[in-house]
């Protein structure tokens, strides 16, 4: 996999995430294209790429969103874990379904909120709003994964297919 192509893919996802996705909120919640990209790269390319994409995507997301670095932690952990599960436990990428993306989204949101609580010293909202947002976020990510997965996979495996 060409690293430059992967970087451009992350940048593209970031631009869509910051410019377009805020106009497609569902109950005030936007999906996380970068998280989906981290999961897909870990599944398709393995653990090493999963961590790398997680770190770069998380760092860029943090830079553009706040002065607190939390997404870099959750995305690096998710990239590593999904790659590890795929390589050692499940073996086939088909085993990672859209349901897995929703579970991963749930875990990632819990990590983000926990670290935010640790760094800023207070919860982002009440438990009710946090839980509602996490559930909508997980379902939204799950719903759009099938739209992204084939194209992202094709770009990631472009060299091998050629």
């Amino acid at each position, binding site marked *: 996999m060409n690293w430059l192509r992967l970087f451009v893919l992350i*940048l593209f996802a970031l*631009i869509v995430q910051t410019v377009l996705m*805020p106009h497609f909120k569902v109950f005030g*919640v936007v999906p996380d294209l970068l998280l989906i990209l981290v999961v897909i790269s870990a599944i398709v390319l393995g653990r090493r790429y999963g*961590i790398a994409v997680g770190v770069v995507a998380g760092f860029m*997301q943090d830079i*553009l969103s706040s002065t607190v670095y939390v997404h870099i932690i959750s995305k690096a952990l998710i990239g*590593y874990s999904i790659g590890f599960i795929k390589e050692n436990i499940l073996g086939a990428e088909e085993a990672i379904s859209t349901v897995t993306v929703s579970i991963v989204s749930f875990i990632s949101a819990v990590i983000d909120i926990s670290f935010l609580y640790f760094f800023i010293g207070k919860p982002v909202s009440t438990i009710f709003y946090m839980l*509602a947002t996490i559930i909508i976020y997980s379902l939204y990510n799950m719903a759009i994964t099938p739209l992204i997965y084939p194209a992202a996979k094709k770009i990631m495996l472009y060299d091998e297919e050629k």
Partner: protein
Amino acid sequence: MLYRRKRANLIGIFIILVVVILLNFSIFNTTPLLRFSRAVSIRLIYPVQYAANSLYVATRDFFVNIALLRSAQKENKSLQAELSLYKAKVNSFNELVKDNEQLREYLKYRSSSPFSYRLLNAEVIARSASNWFSSFEINRGQDDGIKGDMAVISADGLVGRIAEVSKSSSKVLLITDPSSAVSVVNQRSRHVGIIIGSSIGPLLMKYVSSNADMQPGDIIVTSGMSEVFPRGIAVGTVTSVNKKDYDLFQKISVSPAVNLSKLESVFVVVR
């Protein structure tokens, strides 16, 4: 061999975790290397975001304008009638402003209204990439005289403050961000408090004593007690008040005066 590689990966993850945790403490957050990498990243991404946003707005406006063309003529007539009414109102408003200025001069009172400062118009070009933070990027930066901690408002009320400035863009921290805090006052009862952001759910007004007179529907405005926000800017409306006998403070929810998710342009209060 495989075991060694797995261990190396785990150590790598651990190092990343430690570095990131350290990054979040202010002493490391302001290191030149990190500031430089932030500035470079923002400068690289900004033109692409600006172009993508312009393309999106142009495409959307094209279709919206076609749809609106039919009703435009009818609306134009009614707006013109409304405009003449407002012209009369503005005249009487101007008279009041002059009277007010004169009275302030007699009292040697320094105005802190946002309208006594220069307001710089800016466009929103990108929004936060996360659900947990509330911020957006505007197309004005150091070149336009923007500095950190300047207040950002819209026609409806308070939007936030400038959190970061780069050459030609700035990041605005919205009042709904969890790290935002604004000193406010109830326009009716004059009780003061602090509005704390909540990126999901309503704003929370804190530190209002349990015997203070707060009612749903009350308008909350900036108190002007801080150096950042001029006084009298609408922040929101009280939606619910929860007080218990044994609590020192009330739990007050406030709905923002500005629909922050629909904002396309704002004003920066240049002080």
